[in-house]
């Protein structure tokens, strides 16, 4: 079935060095700043592998680190042709003046040691070029096949040391891959690394599937399937590929999400023209109804402490956002702007709720505080929908569908990411059209 993504055995040790006064850092909460200039020279190599092969591995690792850091918009990797120093080993001291000469602010030095044909030890050091000081160093031993994850973890460590926030490079995306004609789209579950690598289709497209979301421990995906023309919420076990319907509901179930502890699912059930929110305890299979109205109550999402749920409802006449306690009590409307509000998702940090907004014939992705204040729109289009948070709560992914052209050819549907500052919007490369993205937790934090 699915390739095991955890085959990496890690020894991850880090030694934080002393804090300098004028710390080399990036504030990612505020206004846009120039990307930090980083020197990232070739990693030196040693050990039980032909030098060319070892260098190839080292180059691949450097490329992934470069791609991760560059994609964040916070770093720019300086052109390696300009580098005046090359390193022979990890103990080789940086010639800081050489790096200052090309205006590098930070320097990443690395080494790959082949302990055997299959086992590598990667060492990295992060330097503050102007302070001539080590900011961070780490050594990890991994199966050679785990080089890519190791590179993501190094990029995460650099990101964390510089920004003070957890990274998000060692993560995956589950989404819906779309092919076929506009009137009868074929939709498949698919999974990939956050940078589009290790792409894999999980279902065959025989059944329409929608809105996948990860469990907090990454072992399962909950989603909706039209298997046997009976639209219901399902669980997909990533390890075994097994699919299983959730509960025995009389009506259509949809819009599922896991609770932060992974023990519960919340979802909607539509029956007899009414849609309410239900919770299912996955351990006991006990079902509890949380809302009771003649309205459409859907798209529920837990707060990160699991104590509250945000959802959208048309009980006031049009879709607006509401927050309630996890037991369904104390329902409070939080959105009051012009337009309709939908698909609220609570940030993993708890500080924002992301949403889709529809106004004046356009769609927007935005964020607001959980009390409804501070609304900010950060993406806009004919159809943008379904924000999902990076695990550090700093980036949103969503999908964008272009309008069909005059000949009736459907517009492209693609996944984008954007910083919650509204800057650095970029498209994810997928093999086919893509919608309904869901971001995983940080794998190495689990």
């Amino acid at each position, binding site marked *: 079935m699915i390739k095991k993504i955890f085959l990496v055995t890690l020894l991850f040790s880090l030694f934080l060095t002393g804090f300098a006064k004028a710390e080399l850092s990036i504030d990612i909460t505020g206004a846009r700043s120039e990307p930090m200039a980083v020197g990232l020279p070739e990693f030196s190599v040693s050990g039980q592998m032909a030098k060319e092969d070892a260098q190839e591995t080292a180059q691949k690792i450097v490329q992934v680190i470069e791609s991760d850091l560059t994609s964040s918009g916070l770093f720019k990797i300086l052109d390696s042709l300009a580098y005046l120093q090359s390193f022979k080993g990890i103990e080789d001291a940086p010639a800081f003046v050489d790096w200052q000469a090309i205006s590098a602010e930070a320097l990443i030095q690395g080494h790959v040691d082949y302990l055997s044909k299959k086992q590598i030890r990667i060492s990295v050091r992060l330097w503050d070029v102007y302070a001539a000081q080590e900011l961070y160093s780490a050594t990890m031993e991994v199966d050679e096949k785990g080089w890519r994850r190791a590179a993501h973890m190094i990029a995460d460590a650099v990101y964390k040391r510089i920004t003070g926030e957890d990274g998000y490079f060692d993560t995956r995306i589950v989404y819906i891959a779309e092919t076929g004609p506009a009137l009868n789209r074929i939709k498949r579950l698919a999974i990939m690394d956050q940078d589009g690598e290790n792409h894999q289709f999980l279902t065959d497209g025989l059944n329409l599937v929608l809105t996948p979301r990860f469990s907090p421990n990454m072992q399962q995906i909950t989603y909706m399937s039209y298997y046997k023309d009976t639209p219901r919420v399902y669980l997909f076990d990533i390890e075994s590929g097994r699919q299983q319907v959730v509960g025995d509901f009389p009506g259509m179930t949809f819009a599922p999400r896991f609770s932060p502890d992974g023990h519960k699912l919340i979802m909607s059930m539509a029956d007899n023209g009414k849609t309410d929110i239900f919770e299912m305890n996955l351990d006991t299979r006990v079902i509890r109804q949380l809302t009771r109205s003649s309205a459409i109550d859907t798209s529920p999402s837990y707060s990160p402490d699991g104590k509250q749920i945000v959802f959208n409802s048309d009980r006031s006449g049009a*879709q607006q956002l509401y927050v309630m306690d996890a037991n369904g009590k104390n329902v409070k409307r939080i959105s009051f702007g012009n337009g309709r509000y939908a698909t609220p998702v609570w940030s993993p940090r708890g500080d924002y709720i992301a949403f889709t907004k529809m106004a004046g014939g356009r769609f927007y992705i935005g964020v607001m505080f959980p009390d409804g204040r501070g609304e900010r729109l950060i993406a806009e289009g004919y159809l943008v929908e379904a924000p999902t948070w990076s695990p550090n709560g700093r980036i949103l992914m969503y999908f964008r569908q272009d309008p*069909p052209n005059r000949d009736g050819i459907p517009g492209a549907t693609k996944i984008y990411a954007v910083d919650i500052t509204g800057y650095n919007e970029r498209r994810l490369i997928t093999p086919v059209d893509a919608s309904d993205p869901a971001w995983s937790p940080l794998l190495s934090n689990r």
Partner: protein
Amino acid sequence: MKKRLFAVLAAVALISGCASTTPAEEEDEASAAAQQAAEQSEAFVQNAKDRVFFGFDKSNLSADAVRVLKVQAEYLKANPTKKIVIEGHTDDRGTREYNLALGERRAVAVKNYLISRGVDADRIRVISYGKERPAVVGANEAAWSQNRRAVTLVKD
């Protein structure tokens, strides 16, 4: 695929009707019934009587919709063995999950009307496709209004 529109049923019925030159009495009777059903269901499709349309974000039945559903109810009462599936659909001007619920609401509105006209509830199944199965492609009101619909499919 799984969808058997009135149109398909009509085509099948017409084929069996054409093949009905055999002398067997039963077959004649059967083909006559099929012919009749075919004519009626063909009338549905030709007059766009297999579907009703809705306003933006609405699920109430318009006067036009009621006229269509009256014909459907008569057909169903005249053919008491037929079962139907009502598909609820939306345009793409809403979010996926909300539209699934809205499509269900539309299908149920049709179901409830047919029940009120004497069609047995046990013969009716509803399914919502939300915005997943548009009838036409387009980014304009003409297309959207065609997609905000509930379609009645006859099952054998």
